[in-house]
C-alpha cells in the first residue's frame, strides 16, 4: 500500500510525458510536410544566432518593458524547473526533498530561496502582462485576428503561470519541516502565517495537495503547449537556428525558373528535345505556394513558433494604415491550415485527402498579399526570427506565375518591363536622354 503514491506518480508522469511525446511526433511530421530547404550552411553563425536571439533574448529587449518582464519570466521558468527535477525524484522514490539529503543545507537553502524569489517575480510579471493585455488593452493584443481562441489562449497561459507559481510557494509555506529549517524560505515564510491555526495534519494535506497539483499542473501545461501559441518556449531555439542568414533584402532565386530561363537563353538548346532521364522529377508541380505543403519546412516551423505577440503587425506599414494585411495573421493562418492538413492526414490513415480548401483564399486573401510593401519591418521586429515576408512572396509567386492574377496595374508594369526594359512605357533607346535634357 505504501507504494501507491509512487506508482500513481510514475503513471501520471508517464502519461504526461508520453502524450506530449506523441504530439511532438505529430508536430515534426507536420513540419516535414513542407518542401526541403538546405540549412546545413554556416553552422557557427547559426549557433551564434540561437545563443544571442533565443537564449540571450537580444531582440526581446528592444522593447524594454515587455522585454524586461519577459526575461524575468523566461529566467524564472528555466531556473524554477530545476525544482521539478527534485519533485520527480521525490515522486518516484517516495522521498521528501531529496535535495536536503544530497546537498549541504546552505546550498539547498540558497537554491530554494532563489526559486522562491523568482517565483514571486514571475508572478508579478505575469500580473503585469495580464494588465497590459486586458486593462491597458495594448493595441497589438486587440487586432482583428486576436479574438476568441487566440485571445483566450494568451490569458489561459498567464493564469496557468500564476497558479503554478502560487502552488510552488504554498507548497513551501505549508511544509513545516522546511519552514523549521528557516533556510531558503525567503518568500514562503510570509505566506506561512496565512495558514496559522490549522492543524499539522491539515497543513500536511495542503502541502501534499499543492505538491501534487504543481507537478500535475506542469504536465498539463506541457501538454497544453501543442494546442497553444506557447510552443515558442521550445521552438524559438530551432527557429532562431534555422532563421535567415542572408541580408533581409535578399529573396531567394527560384531554381526551377533559373533552369527554364537558362534554357531559353541558350541558343543551342532544343526546345523539342525529350527531357533527360529522371529530369521529370526536377520540374516542380507549381511555382510559388497556394497551400502549406508548397512552403518549405522552415516556414512551417516559423508558423508553429509564432507566439502571436504581434510586434510584427505593430510595425507593419500596411497594418498601421488600416489595410487588412497583418503579418501575424499570415503566420497564424499558416499554422491553422497546417493543423487542419495534419488532422486530415490522421483521419485518412496517413494520406492527405483533398478537402477542397487551401491556404490561399480560404485563409489568406489576395487583398492581404497585395498590401505588402516587402519592407521587412515584420522580419526585423520578430524576436524569434520568423519571416512572414517569405510566405507572402511565395504566395504572390503563385498568384502571378500560376494564375496570372496580379492587379491590372502590375500586369501593365510587367508588360512594360518585357517590352521596353522599364516599368513605364518608355522606349529603351531613350534611356540616356536625361543627360541632354
Amino acid at each position, binding site marked *: 500500500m505504501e507504494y501507491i503514491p509512487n506508482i500513481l506518480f510514475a503513471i501520471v508522469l508517464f502519461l504526461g510525458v508520453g502524450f506530449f511525446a506523441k504530439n511532438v511526433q505529430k508536430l515534426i511530421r507536420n513540419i516535414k510536410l513542407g518542401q526541403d530547404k538546405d540549412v546545413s550552411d554556416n553552422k557557427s553563425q547559426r549557433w551564434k544566432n540561437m545563443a544571442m536571439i533565443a537564449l540571450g533574448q537580444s531582440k526581446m529587449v528592444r522593447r524594454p518593458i515587455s522585454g524586461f518582464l519577459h526575461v524575468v519570466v523566461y529566467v524564472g521558468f528555466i531556473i524554477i524547473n530545476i525544482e521539478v527535477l527534485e519533485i520527480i525524484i521525490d515522486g518516484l522514490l517516495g522521498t521528501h526533498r531529496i535535495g536536503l539529503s544530497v546537498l549541504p543545507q546552505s546550498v539547498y537553502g540558497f537554491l530554494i530561496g532563489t526559486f522562491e524569489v523568482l517565483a514571486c517575480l514571475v508572478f508579478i510579471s505575469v500580473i503585469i502582462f495580464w494588465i497590459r493585455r486586458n486593462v491597458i488593452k495594448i493595441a497589438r493584443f486587440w487586432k482583428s485576428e486576436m479574438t476568441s481562441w487566440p485571445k483566450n489562449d494568451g490569458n489561459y497561459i498567464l493564469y496557468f503561470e500564476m497558479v503554478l507559481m502560487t502552488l510552488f510557494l504554498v507548497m513551501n509555506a505549508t511544509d513545516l519541516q522546511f519552514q523549521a529549517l528557516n533556510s531558503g524560505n525567503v518568500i514562503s515564510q510570509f505566506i506561512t502565517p496565512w495558514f496559522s491555526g490549522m492543524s499539522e495534519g491539515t497543513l500536511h494535506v495542503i502541502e501534499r495537495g499543492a505538491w501534487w497539483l504543481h507537478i500535475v499542473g506542469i504536465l498539463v501545461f506541457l501538454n497544453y503547449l501543442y494546442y497553444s501559441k506557447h510552443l515558442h518556449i521550445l521552438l524559438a531555439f530551432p527557429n532562431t537556428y534555422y532563421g535567415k542568414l*542572408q*541580408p*533581409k*533584402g*535578399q*529573396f531567394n*532565386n*527560384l531554381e526551377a*525558373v*533559373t533552369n527554364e*530561363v537558362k534554357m531559353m*537563353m541558350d541558343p543551342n538548346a532544343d526546345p523539342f528535345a525529350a527531357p533527360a532521364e529522371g529530369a521529370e522529377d526536377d520540374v516542380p508541380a507549381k*511555382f*510559388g505556394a497556394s497551400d502549406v505543403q508548397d512552403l518549405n519546412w522552415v516556414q512551417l516551423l516559423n508558423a508553429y513558433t509564432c507566439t502571436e505577440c504581434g510586434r510584427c503587425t505593430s*510595425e507593419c*506599414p*500596411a497594418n*498601421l*494604415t*488600416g489595410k*487588412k*494585411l497583418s503579418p501575424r495573421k499570415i503566420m497564424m493562418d499558416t499554422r491553422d491550415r497546417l493543423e487542419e492538413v495534419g488532422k486530415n492526414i490522421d483521419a485518412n490513415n496517413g494520406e492527405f485527402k483533398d478537402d477542397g480548401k487551401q491556404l490561399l483564399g480560404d485563409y489568406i486573401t489576395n*487583398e492581404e498579399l*497585395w*498590401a505588402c*510593401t*516587402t*519592407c*521587412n*519591418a515584420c*522580419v526585423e*521586429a520578430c524576436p524569434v526570427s520568423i519571416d512572414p515576408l517569405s510566405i507572402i*512572396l511565395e*504566395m*504572390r*509567386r*503563385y498568384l*502571378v*506565375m500560376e494564375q496570372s492574377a*496580379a*492587379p491590372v*496595374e*502590375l500586369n*501593365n*508594369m*510587367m508588360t512594360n*518591363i*518585357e517590352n521596353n*526594359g*522599364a*516599368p*513605364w512605357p*518608355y522606349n*529603351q533607346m531613350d*534611356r*540616356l*536622354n*536625361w*543627360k541632354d*535634357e
Partner: protein
Amino acid sequence: MSELLKVPTMADFMAEGKQPEILFWVGSAGSFDDRAKKITKAFVKILNKANVDFAVLGTEESCTGDVAKRAGNEFLFQMQAVTNIEILNAYEINKIVTCDPHSFNCLKNEYPSLGGQYEVLHHTQFINQLIAAGRLEGLNDTYKGKRITFHDPCYLGRANNEYDAPREVLQKTKATLTEMKRHKRTALCCGAGGAQMFKEPEKGDMDINVLRTEGALETNPDIIATGCPYCNTMMTDGVKAKEKESEVQVLDIAELIANAQGL
C-alpha cells in the same frame, strides 16, 4: 549646365580600350522619372567634380527586374537579370554604384547566384567614401544649421543594414540632423516598396506615405532627406498632402551634396 555633364558610356570606354573605376547603374526611375532624373544628374555632377572615372550602360541598361520579383514574377525577374548579367560580364564590370536602393539590393544580393558577381555600392556609401578619401572637398554652408531628417529606405537600411553612410554624408553639410521616432531599424516604409509604386494601395484608413510624412514633420524639418527615387516621390506627395511644400523640401542626399558643392 547640362552641356557640362560628362556621361560616358561603357561602349565609349570599350572603344578606347579602357575600363572605368565604376559603373553608374542609373536604373529605370533614374532614367525616365522626371523627379529622379534630377537626382541622377546631381550624382553625375558629384562624380564629375570628384573626377571619378565612371561610365553608364546607357541604352544597354535594362530594368534590374527587382520590382517584377517583388510582385511575384520570378520568371520576368530572372530574364531581366540574365540579360543584364550578360552585358555586365561582357564589359567585365567589377564595381557598380547606383542611386536606387532597390537596384542596389537586387544587384548586390540576387544577381550573384545567377552569375553576376560585382561589388555594389549605394551612392550614399560611395559619396561617403569620396569624402573620406578627400576626393570631394569644399562643401559650402548652404545647409548649415538647417534641420534635416533622413528617411531610411527599406532596401538600404533593414534590407542591407546600412544606416550610417547616409547620415555620415549628411553630417558633412553642417546641418542639424534630427531623427524621426521610427528610424533606422524601425523606420517606416514610404509605401512604394514591393511593387506598390505601380498600383493603387489596398483599402485602408490612410496612405502609408502620409503616415510617414507625418512622422517626418514631427521633427520640424526644413528638409526631408532621402536616398531612393521612390521614397522621394512618396515623401514629396506626402508633403503636398500635408500642404507643407512651401516650408519643407524633399531632397536626395546626392542633391544636397551637389548643392552644397555649388554644383
